[in-house]
């Protein structure tokens, strides 16, 4: 089910001294099964934007269509929309409130009208899908580590069987392994269950590795909407917006300037490694002599 924003603007505290134009004339379309990244510095409007996707915020002007229907239309059922477009916020500790994890994850589906008996299998399935261990199902949310809390919070959204899953910095504060782990599982949800994923992140490395389309927000506007490697090629402009490109992008540009014919599109370690090897062979680099035979 595609989401479409047409000329969407949003103003906080309109017509007061505190008026802030958080979104200005946003036009974009999110197709089914996409894996999209959204970046932007603090205050760029990205959180405001994602809250429009499941009707937590009503635009000041413009229209948001879900599957072709205006979500602020008169008879539109926004309750259904909210269960189809799931939003996991940044601070999982703010989202967990039940006595135990399983009950917490059951809350969403029960709110959709399921009984506890019906909700529980959904909750169990969702928890296992995000890699939450069964032995911890009955623990209190307070006993969980940061990574476990994040998993539980994502499971809480997933248990409602959303078609679109929006994650606001799902990995802030996690160690590298936990980060990869959660993102791998999210990527699997996208490829196996066909869920559309919208990932808000400050980690350019993660964006480069997982997403296929990248939206860059700055001062309430969409400034780039393209493949990540295309966006990262504007790294100088990104820096002016308080952002950056992955380390690899800088390296590839540096190498190119010094005459090594590398592919500037490479923005992950795997791609860069391949491209550098190829370039080194092309220039017949002495670094490849002896021991380079198995390359």
């Amino acid at each position: 089910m595609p989401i479409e924003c047409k000329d969407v603007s949003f103003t906080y505290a309109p017509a007061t001294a505190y008026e802030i134009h958080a979104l200005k004339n946003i036009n974009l379309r999110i197709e089914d099964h996409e894996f999209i990244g959204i970046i932007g510095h603090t205050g760029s409007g990205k959180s405001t934007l994602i809250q429009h996707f499941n009707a937590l915020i009503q635009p000041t002007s413009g229209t948001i269509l879900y599957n072709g229907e205006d979500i602020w239309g008169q008879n539109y059922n926004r309750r259904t929309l909210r269960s189809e477009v799931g939003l996991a916020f940044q601070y999982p500790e703010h989202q967990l409130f039940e006595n135990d994890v399983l009950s917490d994850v059951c809350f969403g589906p029960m709110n959709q009208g399921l009984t506890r008996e019906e909700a529980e299998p959904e909750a169990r399935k969702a928890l296992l899908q995000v890699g939450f261990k069964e032995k911890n199902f009955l623990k209190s949310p307070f006993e969980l580590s940061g990574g476990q809390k994040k998993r539980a919070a994502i499971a809480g959204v997933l248990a409602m069987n959303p078609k679109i899953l929006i994650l606001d910095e799902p990995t802030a504060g996690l160690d590298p392994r936990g980060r990869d782990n959660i993102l791998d599982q999210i990527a699997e949800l996208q490829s196996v269950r066909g869920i559309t994923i919208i990932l808000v992140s400050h980690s350019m490395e993660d964006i480069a590795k997982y997403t296929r389309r990248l939206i860059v927000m700055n001062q309430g506007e969409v400034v780039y909407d393209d493949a990540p490697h295309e966006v990262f090629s504007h790294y100088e402009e990104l820096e002016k917006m308080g952002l950056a490109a992955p380390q690899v992008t800088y390296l590839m540009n540096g190498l190119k300037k010094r005459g090594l014919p590398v592919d500037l599109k490479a923005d992950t370690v795997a791609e860069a490694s391949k491209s550098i090897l190829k370039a080194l062979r092309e220039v017949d680099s002495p670094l490849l002599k002896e021991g380079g035979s198995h390359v």
Partner: protein
Amino acid sequence: MGIIKALGLVFDYLKYDEEGNVEDTQRAIDDVSLDIEEGDFIAILGHNGSGKSTLAKHMNALLLPTEGTMWVEGIDTSKEEKLWRIRQKAGMVFQNPDNQIIASVVEEDVGFGPENMGIPTEKIWKRVDDSLKAVGMLSYRNHSPNRLSGGQKQRVAIAGVMAMRPKCIVLDEPTAMLDPIGRREVLDAVHELNREAGVTVILITHYMEEAIEADKVFVMDNGKVVMQGSPREVFSQVETLKSYRLDVPQVTELAYELSQAGVKLPQGILTIEELEEALCR
């Protein structure tokens, strides 16, 4: 003895049942000994639950050892009467700046610490000036903290600690919630304090890139210090780090992959410039 020293440090988290009896214990720190020299910039790495935050909380007596001893500038942290002196010597900055800022104006927030210490008013203002200047936030002194960016708030929190003139500052994942520029601002401010004011810095982080500029890196796993050395020594052991659920900076990983594929590169490459140089020789 260095400014912070631990000998045989052990800490158990206790879980109590309804009658108040100990039901369960969990060992968070398991026989840690370390010695940190004054003026050093130390990075502590480790996965979630490895014990690094628990260790940090011992450095200003927020937690007291179950066994073993922790000294801050030679003072045993378990001496209750010395508690306030210890906390003035070792200041602490946490992950979320919103939980650390209490006043409605930046300069008042920074002045809160020294005021609490009973410093005379005119000296407080001097300290507020100095601290805000040190973190590059002087021009925001009359601003409201809630209108600042994450990086700016975190720098105000650091200035608040600096105003107490600590010898040592412990930062527990100060950049986890910040965007890339905010992260850079905070790190630059911390490095500046270390260089200019000679403050000992203990930085706990999950970003490997932040550890490469440290004098020394400690890696924790399962409550123990399992690796220590210069960033180059530690990060050249890519496989070992991965076994501790950690990572290496992206360029270090790339250099490692290239050398696995037969490219002759020096070990332990840490920066983009180093790799660029090595590849274009």
